[in-house]
């Protein structure tokens, strides 16, 4: 069963004061997140990530489309008892202490009174918020608030956790803690859907990612698949200083360094390259697929979308 099925959700806001005009924040979005996945929702600021999350949380109503969460209609109140949500730059009732805040959220999520106290202590410990008893949230640093935010999102042991920019405001140690926590959540069988613009986090954590820009989905798939699909090139290195003539038909550029020659060819030409080297009795040192980083893929997708927009304009 898919944890999330987004079926053509779209959002158009009416902007302007006197003469209202439509502004599309999200093009019809179709996306499926499998159960137990860590799914990254990537995009630059203003891409439509938060709008999508807010629609899934019922905070913003879609102009069209629907979604299914944990196999049920997303508007089903039962669904909300099984999901946790960390909003971007969370802000909480600052007159409460973290214990009071979590107790309140536990009440709203239907955590039984007898379990609540233990659950609160447990999640606070888990997010690294200790020795904070009696301290109101107004005295918390940004990083502590972020940790409290993560604590409230996992307090009621949800099956599905939505995190909007979970690393925001955290120092390197805090980021590592959150990464570990996300991986632990996955090990516990939970599905994690998180939006971020920090690509290294997505690359390190996600099973699959989706890239969104200007309200439009630009790519979706496993991190490895996406990065591999960018160019499909391999790097060939052999011993020697000369480039055989038949090799020049496969590539235009060769780099000779000392006793080795290096070139980059298409993946589907690698067999031909090996045949050439064998025929010429040259020793092959390596053939390595060129794995582009998620960042290059991301940048390429954004550039592509800008070019498309420019062409169509």
């Amino acid at each position, binding site marked *: 069963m898919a944890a999330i099925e987004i079926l053509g959700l779209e959002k158009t806001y009416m902007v302007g004061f006197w003469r209202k005009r439509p502004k599309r924040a999200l093009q019809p979005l179709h996306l499926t997140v499998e159960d137990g996945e860590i799914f990254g929702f990537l995009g630059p600021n203003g891409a439509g990530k938060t709008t999508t999350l807010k629609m899934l949380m019922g905070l913003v109503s879609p102009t069209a489309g629907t979604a299914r969460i944990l196999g049920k209609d997303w508007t089903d109140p039962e669904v909300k008892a099984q999901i946790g949500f960390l909003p971007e730059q969370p802000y909480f009732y600052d007159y409460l202490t973290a214990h009071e805040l979590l107790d309140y*959220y536990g009440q709203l999520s239907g955590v039984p009174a007898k379990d609540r106290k233990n659950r609160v202590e447990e999640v606070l410990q888990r997010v690294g918020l200790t020795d904070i008893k009696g301290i109101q949230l107004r005295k918390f640093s940004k990083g502590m608030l972020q940790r409290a935010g993560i604590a409230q999102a996992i307090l009621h042991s949800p099956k599905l956790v939505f995190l909007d920019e979970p690393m925001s405001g955290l120092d390197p140690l805090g980021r590592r803690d959150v990464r570990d926590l996300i991986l632990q959540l996955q090990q516990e069988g939970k599905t994690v859907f998180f939006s971020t613009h920090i690509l290294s986090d997505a690359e390190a954590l996600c099973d699959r990612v989706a890239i969104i820009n200007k309200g439009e989905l630009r790519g979706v798939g496993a991190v490895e698949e996406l990065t591999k699909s960018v160019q499909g090139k391999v790097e060939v290195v052999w011993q020697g200083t000369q480039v055989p003539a038949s090799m020049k038909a496969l590539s235009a550029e060769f780099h000779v360094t000392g006793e080795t020659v290096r070139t980059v060819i298409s993946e589907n030409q690698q067999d031909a390259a090996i045949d050439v080297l064998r025929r010429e009795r040259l020793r092959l040192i390596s053939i390595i697929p060129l794995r582009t980083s998620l960042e290059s893929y991301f940048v390429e997708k954004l550039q592509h979308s800008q070019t498309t927009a420019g062409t169509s304009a």
Partner: protein
Amino acid sequence: MNARIAHIASNTFREAVRDRVLYNLIAFAVLISAAAIFIGQISIEIERLVVINLGLTAVSLFGMVIAIFVGIGLVSKEIEKRTLYTVLSRPVRRWEFIVGKFFGLAGTLVVNTFFMALGVFGALFYVAHRFSGADSSIFIALYFIILQFLIICALALLFSSFSSPLLSAVFAFSLFIIGSFADDLRGFATLAHGLTHWVATGAAYLVPNFSALNVISAVAHQQPISWQLVLQNTLYTLFYTAMALSGAVLVFDRRDLK
């Protein structure tokens, strides 16, 4: 009341207490004590009348200011500070949030009124040295004041569900003032003709009838308050409050929390 509404109401009450809303009681205590001492020295045989008039009017005004200023921020502050996101992403329906907020503020005002009422009775005892049977009607006046608070709370919530806090305050205050002269407006409507008659009649029945809920002067003058009026005002308040809250829910239900 369902559990979620009770939890939201209780948190709203806690917020009011921690935001020092009840500190107004200090100002009230100073005012009522000073008035009692002053009146005790200068009045002749009208101490009771003056203390009841002044005390209950102060209870009404203090409470009204809290109802409006806290009420207009109940929803807008939550949207502005985004505290609402982590509440509505839980199994909480939007109408439960609005109703919970309403009960939280209403509870705050009832507690506030209780302590101010103690002050009024204290001042009355200070100037009159005893309580009479007629003083029991002060409870009815206090009850009507609380009914006024319920209406203004619901209206403040309604306005805050679609407009800015400043505009909400202006609307709520305007309705409080116009509603205080609702009887006069109805009288004017009966005298007017043509379109004016219909507009005035419509407006007279649309604005909350606070004049019917104000029996301070009658209580001060020891005039009896009929049970029929108590019942009528109770039903009127329930109906008006339910309508205003329904409006707030309808508006808030459709609102995008950007």
